[in-house]
């Protein structure tokens, strides 16, 4: 069997682009998980676990404690849309693959129209 038939030929822009979207999806979601696990979780544990409410409430502007609070407010608000963009990128990748099918069906129709009259039993 020829190689052409066993592998998916990337003949449309959609088929060329879908691995990029899938990769972007993995990268964005991976980045979000990494930041959450490596930075947000320990940072949150330190901020809320090692400082009493009185200390947290009385922190003055410019202190490390308020910098931590600002970071704890910043990252989740940024990461949530990024995770969503990652999921959207995966779905766009799927859509790009689906969008290649109508063109493939058109070519299949042309091939079938040429071949069908020759498919009768040999006399």
């Amino acid at each position, binding site marked *: 069997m020829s190689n052409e038939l066993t592998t998916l030929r990337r003949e449309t822009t959609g088929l060329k682009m879908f691995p990029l979207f899938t990769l972007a999806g993995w990268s964005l979601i991976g980045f979000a998980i990494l930041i959450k696990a490596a930075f947000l979780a320990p940072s949150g544990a330190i901020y809320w676990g090692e400082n009493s409410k009185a200390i947290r409430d009385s922190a003055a502007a410019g202190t490390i404690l308020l910098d931590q609070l*600002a970071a704890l407010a910043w990252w989740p608000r940024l990461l949530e849309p990024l995770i969503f963009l990652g999921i959207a990128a995966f779905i766009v990748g799927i859509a790009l693959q689906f969008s290649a099918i109508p063109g493939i069906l058109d070519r299949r129709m042309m091939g079938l129209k040429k071949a069908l009259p020759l498919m009768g039993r040999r006399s």
Partner: protein
Amino acid sequence: MEKMVQSMMKRFPMIIGIGFMLVVLSVIIGAVNASTAAEYYAFEKASRETNLELAELLAGIESTGIWLPYFKFLGLSMILAGITMALGVIATRLQKLGMEVMSIVPPGARMNIPPRPRSAMWMRIWMILGMMVILIGFVVSLSIAGTAFTVYSNPVVAIDSASSGSALLNGLSAVHSAKGWLEGFKFVGVAFLFMGIVNGLATILVALKFQKQALPQVVDKLPAVPSATAGD
């Protein structure tokens, strides 16, 4: 009507593109909102709770936090609707393929193309319902975000000291109760869109099953073809 639906279906790449752009736009808005939140929380608690300008920053942060998720879901729903439309185009193309192939087959070998299965109709219904639910959710979230902006424009001390029955507490209660029920719109809408995709795939399966059964029967009835050469 059918022609209009078909021409709409063919525009699925545009719908997917717009949907993805909305999600990208929501990332940008989210980043701006995150910076505003970082700026707000860098101030000491006493200032955050009493300063009117800081209260307006908080109002922006809180109201964006209410409508932005629905905006993101609107983008995602457009991508899912685009996939459903692509499936619709594939199903129609399969039917057209069958009709065109049958048109070149001799009348004796021809088979009737079955009518479109019910799943094709359900695919469209679920897709439209899903988009409608998501759109309603987005519009309602904008209205709730407006209420949240009005409430949080007041300093935290004013909100905390508001008496029961006051406009401020009524607004706050509306915001908090809406957060509970509004969530349903996002997931019900997306579930409807997934139902549309499932029905689209079912339609394609019906068409492919018919082709699998019909092709050998048609070939069997085709007139005999003379051999190419005697030595074959």
